[in-house]
């Protein structure tokens, strides 16, 4: 639907949005009588039972009030937008965000499941982010959007925690249930943290001090349209939440202390700032903050009468504030400015606009006969009932201060815009706009007037029912009227009006003092904090994640050592087990000495790379001897063959790598690494000792031994394990090798191009060389050795199943035999004589291995089941054939392919670069 909206024309966009909103509102209206009569329409669809999250909606009077406000005013906004938005605005995008926002707001109102409410709650943060940032080319919009998201989204996260705790304390996430469990919740230890977190969510959303600062910057939104939305509905979400959870959370001292105080402070604070703003939208924004403070304070009092006052003020505020925003929007639209200092005397030029602006401002000021007056009276009356720290005068006094300030800013708005000397901003002769812009605010002003003149008729039942819903008790007896007789509230009200007028009279002087004073700008603070956070985070991130392999490895080794020590502290005295040790022959000791000496020498001579390699060979040889001595002929074979290939590989690479000795690291670093190495080595030794000296328990290899011949058809248990019992491992192993070959090819094939190719071509060997490329004796010997080595390879392959050997070693022998040709006769000579490519070898090897595995499925046996049999041929005699040998062929293919791929490619790199000097880049 969004996509369709994007593409369709402006009229269609508006039509769809308006119709959707209108339908919603009408449905709501149709349900209203029943709701007010006590019905509770509800619907529920399970969503995530594990979470207690269901799509559970209900419509009680409070929900009705809020949903009605949102949809009713939403409809007016769409109408207004039709007049406001210019043709070239992307209305589709704007309206989809708006509808998303509106939907989320309605969702909050209607949720009967707190988790669901959280979903909608965060959605409003998100959609308001999009709306505020709608005019994304302005820095103001982007920053405002981000700030709003950070503050309200962050508050929302606290709310999540709070709601979950609340649900936990109440034992349910169903709102209807939770609301009946106030006593249980308030007795729970979770109450205080839950309350704090929930209030954090509510206060940020409702822009309560000190989280108020995002709201004025949300006014950077493209139009007063969305700005209104923020002030008239979204910010009320916090108030709604307080009202919604009133039965379960309100009434405690903590509630009073937090909620009433915050509201009161915010009321005064917001009003004071509003008085000195010059941007119309900013004035309205801060007034909103102040008015919200008022509502919050009332809810904080936690009396039914205060709740009734709050509810009625919500209604009033929605009407007059929406009207005011639209009013300011018209002025902006018609004059091209929102700066109140550049505007004035507009009453004569745009009378209709002025009338409605003045009326709405009067409502905001709390002047009779508008609804705002009544709710303010109620407020003042409630404050008079409230004592703080035993003092009954403090709250009423402060509330009156707030009221005074609000009179002052309201009057400033009305008088500054419409009266006095004529100032018309950017436009010479502004005039009243068309019906689309005028009708909605007019309707709202009429409503505001109605709330004052006929309060009980228009709002009475709704306020009564809603208050009952808020307090969770019986419907209170309320009396909405302009005249309650001479009482304290009236006196305070009059005082406020007079004070307001006085303040306005002294406004110029005050404004000067305010302008020259040093004020903490919350936005600048917030931005600075954010920038500092980002900078600090970036610095920390960069410092930690420096691209140093040394650090990666250092931490890895250190972690392993620490974890090893964790376990070692539990090994206790039993380091040595009860198994008798094996005596060491002098030869074994000699080999051990050689190994240790070679290891030490590698470490010492590491900077002379060639020498280090020679000593690596010694270590390899010593280990091969150890394998021979310790009954592992297969391992010895493999070790010997792999060693040769590895050395060739390292020499090939070393040729092109820089040969000058590496820079010596600092003594401290070397010492540190040496200590770490010794600790790790000591740990490894101790662990190896501990395990080797332990008596061997029952192992699964007993089964392998027993079944090797009877079940696997071979006497070399190691080989039968590799190609039968654990052939699956071997399949993975050859795939690893095959991948290594492919990856090496992928790395080296393009090495002659680009930066690498340039470097290769520029590469000059600094060592003096003998001119002889192919020494005669060596070449001749390798020609004889090739068939001989192939024969040995075949032999080792064929007997592997019963004697040491097998596909892997055989393939290495084949590879070495061919590599010898490369070494002796050169790359080109050998390459043109080779018959099989490495790629097909690897591919077919893998296919044969998998095919062997799948073959057994045809016989109803599991994947990779082996089979063998003894056959008799004339002359040849009896011989054995096993499917495992086919598998071993696969092993040999892949190993040969991969090894040849690695070494042949590597050996070819330098020459290829020399040969194609102009092959740069293209393929």
């Amino acid at each position, binding site marked *: 639907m969004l996509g369709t909206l994007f593409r369709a024309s402006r009229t269609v966009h508006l039509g769809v949005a308006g119709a959707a909103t209108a339908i919603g509102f009408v449905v709501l209206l149709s349900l209203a009588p029943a709701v007010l009569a006590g019905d509770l329409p509800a619907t529920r669809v399970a969503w995530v039972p594990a979470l207690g999250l269901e799509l559970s909606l209900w419509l009680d009077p409070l929900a009705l009030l809020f949903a009605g406000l949102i949809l009713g005013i939403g409809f007016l906004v769409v109408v207004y937008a039709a007049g406001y938005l210019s043709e070239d605005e992307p209305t589709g995008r704007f309206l989809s965000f708006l509808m998303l926002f509106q939907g989320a707001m309605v969702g909050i109102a209607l949720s009967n499941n707190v*988790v669901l409410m959280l979903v909608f709650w965060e959605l409003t943060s998100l959609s308001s982010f999009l709306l505020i940032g709608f005019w994304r080319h302005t820095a103001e919009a982007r920053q405002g959007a981000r700030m709003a998201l950070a503050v309200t989204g962050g508050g929302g996260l606290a709310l999540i925690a709070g709601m979950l705790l609340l649900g936990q304390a109440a034992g349910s996430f169903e709102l209807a249930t939770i609301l009946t469990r106030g006593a249980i919740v308030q007795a729970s230890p979770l109450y205080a943290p839950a309350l704090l977190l929930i209030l954090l969510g509510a206060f940020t959303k409702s822009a309560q001090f000190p989280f108020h600062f995002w709201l004025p910057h949300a006014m950077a939104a493209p139009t007063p349209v969305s700005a209104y939305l923020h002030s008239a509905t979204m910010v009320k979400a916090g108030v709604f939440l307080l009202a919604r959870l009133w039965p379960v959370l309100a009434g405690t001292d903590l509630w009073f202390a937090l909620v009433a105080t915050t509201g009161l402070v915010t009321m005064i604070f917001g009003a004071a700032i509003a008085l000195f703003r010059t941007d119309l939208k900013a004035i309205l924004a801060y007034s909103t903050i102040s008015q919200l403070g008022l509502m919050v304070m009332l809810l904080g009092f936690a009396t039914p009468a205060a709740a009734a006052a709050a509810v009625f003020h919500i209604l009033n505020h929605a009407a007059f504030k929406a009207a005011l925003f639209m009013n300011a929007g018209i002025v902006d639209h018609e004059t091209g400015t929102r700066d109140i200092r550049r505007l004035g005397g507009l009453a004569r030029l745009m009378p209709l606009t002025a009338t409605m602006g003045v009326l709405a401002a009067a409502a905001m000021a709390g002047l009779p006969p508008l609804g705002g007056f009544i709710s303010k009276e109620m407020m003042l009356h409630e404050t008079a009932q409230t004592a703080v720290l035993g003092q009954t005068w403090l709250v009423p006094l402060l509330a009156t201060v707030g009221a005074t300030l609000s009179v002052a800013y309201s009057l400033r708005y009305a008088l500054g815009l419409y009266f006095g000397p004529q100032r018309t901003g950017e436009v010479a002769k502004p005039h009243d706009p068309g019906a689309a812009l005028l009708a909605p605010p007019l309707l709202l002003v009429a409503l505001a007037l109605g709330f004052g003149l006929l309060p009980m008729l228009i709002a009475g039942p709704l306020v009564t029912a809603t208050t009952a819903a808020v307090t969770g008790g019986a419907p209170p007896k309320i009396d909405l009227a302009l005249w309650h007789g001479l009482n304290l509230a009236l006196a305070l009200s009059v005082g406020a009006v007079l004070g307001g007028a006085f303040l306005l009279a002294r406004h110029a002087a005050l404004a000067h003092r305010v302008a020259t004073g040093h004020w903490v700008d919350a936005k600048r603070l917030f931005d600075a904090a954010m920038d500092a956070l980002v900078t600090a985070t970036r610095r920390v991130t960069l410092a930690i994640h420096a691209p140093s392999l040394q650090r990666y490895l250092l931490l890895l080794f250190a*972690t392993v050592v620490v974890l090893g020590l964790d376990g070692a502290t539990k090994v206790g005295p039993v380091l040595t087990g009860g198994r008798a040790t094996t005596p060491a022959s002098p030869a074994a000791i000699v080999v051990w000495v050689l190994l240790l000496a070679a290891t030490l020498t590698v470490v010492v001579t590491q900077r002379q790379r060639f020498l280090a390699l020679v000593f690596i060979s010694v270590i390899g040889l010593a280990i091969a001897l150890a394998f021979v001595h310790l009954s592992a002929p297969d391992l010895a074979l493999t070790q010997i063959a792999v060693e040769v290939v590895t050395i060739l590989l390292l020499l090939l690479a070393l040729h092109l790598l820089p040969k000058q000795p590496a820079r010596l690291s600092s003594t401290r670093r070397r010492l540190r690494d040496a200590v770490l190495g010794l600790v790790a080595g000591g740990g490894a030794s101790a662990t190896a000792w501990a395990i080797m000296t332990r008596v061997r328990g029952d192992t699964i290899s007993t089964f392998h031994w027993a079944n090797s011949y009877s079940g696997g058809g071979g006497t070399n248990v190691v080989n039968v394990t590799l190609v039968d019992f654990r052939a*699956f491992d071997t399949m993975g192993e050859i795939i690893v090798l095959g991948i290594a070959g492919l990856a090496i090819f992928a790395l080296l094939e393009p090495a002659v191009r680009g930066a690498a190719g340039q470097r290769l071509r520029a590469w000059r060997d600094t060592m003096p060389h003998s001119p002889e490329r192919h020494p005669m004796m060596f070449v001749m010997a390798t020609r004889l050795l090739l068939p001989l080595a192939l024969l040995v390879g075949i032999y080792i392959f064929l007997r592997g199943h019963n004697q040491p050997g097998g596909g892997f070693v055989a393939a290495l022998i084949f590879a070495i035999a061919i590599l010898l040709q490369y070494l002796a006769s050169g790359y080109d000579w050998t390459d043109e004589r080779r018959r099989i490519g490495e790629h097909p070898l690897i591919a077919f090897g893998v296919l044969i291995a998998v095919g062997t595995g799948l073959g*057994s499925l045809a016989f109803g046996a599991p994947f990779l089941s082996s089979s063998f049999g003894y056959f008799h041929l004339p002359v040849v005699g009896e011989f054995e054939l096993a499917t495992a040998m086919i598998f071993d062929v696969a092993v040999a293919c892949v190993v040969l392919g991969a090894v040849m791929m690695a070494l042949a490619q590597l050996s070819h790199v330098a020459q290829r670069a020399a040969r194609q000097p102009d092959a740069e880049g293209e393929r």
Partner: protein
Amino acid sequence: MTAFDHLIVAPIVIPAVTAAVALLVMRRRRRLGAALSLAGCVAGLLAAVALLVTASDDAIRVYAIGGWRAPFGIVLVLDRLSAAMLVLASLLGTIVMAHAVITAADRKGWHFHPLFQFQLLGLNGAFLTGDLFNLFVFFEVLLIASYGLMLHGQGAARLKAGVAYVVVNIVGSAIFLVALGLLYGLTGTLNMADMGVRIAMLPSGDGGLARIAGLLLTAVFALKAALVPLHLWLPRTYAATMPVVAALFAIMTKVGVYAMIRVVPLVFGATTGEAAWVPSPWLAPAAIVTALLGFGGVLSGRGLRESAAFAVLGSTGSLLLVLAAWTPAATAAALFYLINATLAGAALFLVADVAMRRRGQYGDAIVPTPRFAGQDAVGLLYLATCIAAIGLPPLSGFIGKLLMLRATVDAPAQPAIWATILGTTLIGVVGFARSGSAIFWKPADGGAGLVSAERSRADLTAPAAALGAIVLLTVFAGPVSDWTAATARQVFAADRYVAAVLSSEAGR
């Protein structure tokens, strides 16, 4: 055995055959090779889904490779956990493969398709195997394939990062082998179910050694999962590689998490004395730091890929933090979040790729540019992806986070866990808002016109598909979370797993 019983090897056989055939075909007929590879992905996905349906009856199915019964041979085990991971990997693989083919990323170097298929093979094998050494082997398969993929397309930065990635993981493999050897030396078995049983029966003097082995093993898993302080390799690796490859890598860290979920309750369960719940004292603190560093990186990232990489890190941290409680409820929640985090992490990289393709020389740097083709569409995708990645409503990330919060409500470290999860979410929100607004909102100074000629919208398909999967996960969050809950129950009922594996009728 019926043919259907053999289906369990399909996730291994299909990619193996596809890889080999693609290797043979690709040299001559690129298109055919790519088509085969994509078809292989789809076939693998279908097989995985069939296995998932099979596993949903709560039975644990054991398949003895080569007919050798556990613990003597290698068995594949299909339970809810392995089936779910298979589907996740196959789904991700298919989406990413589609993107690679659509954007021709597979032509930026050699052997993309074989390497990709082998990568899937390694993943699937790791999820299915019931044998610890075999797990090592499949780890190696998936690692070495990842080395190849990571280097795909090459370039100095990628190669440099590749060296570090490869070396660190080689050392990790060495540690894996030491742990494995130690466990075999102590227990005389390699089968995980059997190993758990035998560790519980070790003489008391061997408990410390078992603990060392367990700690080393989990250190290896933590390295794969990129848990602080073993996470250092991740940001640069993921940011330096091609985004389409990084998208696939979104599941690589989850393999480490999977391995912990599989191994710890099974091998180091409550009855194993000093080795019980072996990573416990270390896991949660490390996870907290991981989450903080991860989302901090999102906030301070200079490129889309970098911040996506850090987002992957952060999600792993959150996930392991919850997992560290080692309760079925926490594991269930973590599993749900894992699915979301994998898809969202991949989507982040795919969207970054799409943005890079359109922003020309600006690449993925978080700086304003002149308008580029499809800016709004890409921006919308980015927004939705970020929502999923950080866990804002309405997408499944939010549900995942709520599940994790709820699951840890009684945990001793509940305040720390909640503060971490929610605090890092806020950092992530701010971070993504910054990057999104800089790239998709802020116009470049004095810039005019388009930066790149890329006008096709085909490359939006795969990111949109990833998002579609996330939307489905959201809509069906109920059934999925029920599934993960049942999965967690199954994981923690180690005795059922042991009984299924060790008493299996299959095999010689």
